[in-house]
């Protein structure tokens, strides 16, 4: 009978990668806020975090958990004084829906993924609008919401390519590190 201290250390634990990916989500929150300073993106900054959560849950659902998506949303609310819980719940729901659809979408071509993402953006905006309606009994500027949704959908291909490249680079680095350790 060996104690946990006698066992060899778990060097290939997925937790550090998961933490790093969640932190990258928080960085995207800050980047999204920075983009909002551009006049063209005022009140309509592209939803980079949403695209990230969608992509991760579609292709690497083990790496970005629902709770991580929830915490990223909470971080954005605390950082930018938005209604507490609105973003967090919406992102958690997006992560859940994406996971549910991922067995079908993972084998689809890019156009299908893009259209699925468009639906996700519409769901995300509608959910937030519904919460806003219940909380304030009024609706925010619909044109701005459509502009933000449209901007996010239009910019998705660029963000998708960047994420695919980053994921390939990450996997290459991890594989090289693992190979080095085996040798």
């Amino acid at each position: 009978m060996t104690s946990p201290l006698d066992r060899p250390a778990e060097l290939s634990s997925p937790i550090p990668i998961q933490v790093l990916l969640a932190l990258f989500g928080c960085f995207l929150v800050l980047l999204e806020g920075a983009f909002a300073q551009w006049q063209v993106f005022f009140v309509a900054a592209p939803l980079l975090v949403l695209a990230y959560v969608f992509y991760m849950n579609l292709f690497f659902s083990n790496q970005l958990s629902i709770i991580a998506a929830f915490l990223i949303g909470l971080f954005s609310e605390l950082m930018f004084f938005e209604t507490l819980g609105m973003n967090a719940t919406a992102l958690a729901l997006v992560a859940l829906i994406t996971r549910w659809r991922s067995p079908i979408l993972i084998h689809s071509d890019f156009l299908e993924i893009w259209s699925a993402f468009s639906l996700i953006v519409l769901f995300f905006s509608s959910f937030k609008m519904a919460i806003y309606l219940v909380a304030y009994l009024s609706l925010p500027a619909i044109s701005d919401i459509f502009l933000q949704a449209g901007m996010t959908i239009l910019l998705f291909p660029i963000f998708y390519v960047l994420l695919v490249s980053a994921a390939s680079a990450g996997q290459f680095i991890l594989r090289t590190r693992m190979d080095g350790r085996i040798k």
Partner: protein
Amino acid sequence: MAGRTGRMRAAQPRRFFHLLIILLGFALIFVGKADMLAVRTVQTSFSGLFAPLFNVVATPVRAVETMFEGMRTVASLREETVRLRAENERLKRWQRRSEILESENRQLRTVLGAVIPADRQAVTARAIAAPGSSFSHTMMITHGTDKRIHRGDPVVTADGLVGYIIEVSKRHSWVLMLSDVNSRIPILLSTSSWPGLAIGQNSDVLSLSFLPLEAEPKENELVLTSGHGEILPPGLPVGRVIKGVGREYYIQPVVDLRKVSFVSILVRPEGEGVSEIGGFADFFTPLPETDNKRLLEGFSPKDVLQ
């Protein structure tokens, strides 16, 4: 069959956990809506803590925008020069006119015996975070309690009111912009003097509400802060009236909230406490009882004294 049942059993705790997260989200929405001091304090400290990091991330993004702005400026330099010349001429005319009005105003103040408010000083700050979405129209600015900024201090640009401070940390503050759904600004129509309330709608225009029934705001009439509630000083330009359908009126803010990069915060001078803002009585001296004319607020002195 047994494998499928096993998988379903294994998925059950996970489903319960996911449901718990969603419920937690909804609970947070209720807590956030309750507007508790503890939540606000956590939000302020949190955003204050991460503000320097945000500034680091935002600097290159801002630089890119400045670069594009520079390119646009160079492209339209000739056109800009013609426009600026015309504007310069117009401004000179306005300057002469304002000098005449200023002198007239000074004379009128001496007659009325009103005291000019000397209870504010301007602190210039840079906007470091803009709204970014339609759901919240708040803005983070540099400077906080280190520059004597307090909650409720008005935030202005050369054009007029931008909003007021809602949260302050040591080096950063949060501004609730006029257009935010939570913003309520007591206003006065500049020519007809009717009081009302400018309510933000998270859109480009504000709703003009709580006007007396007999009030007939004119299209493009300037709207100023009334100073009621003693939070904002009176006389700050808020916007111009836009007529809606029927008796609906809106206000187009005089400040282009999309282009705010530097603002001035009107803080109280050193040594003056928050409770001493007052000065309200200095501006609104009641008219004599016999005077039957209308007051600024739209009521006759008789109505007020009854």
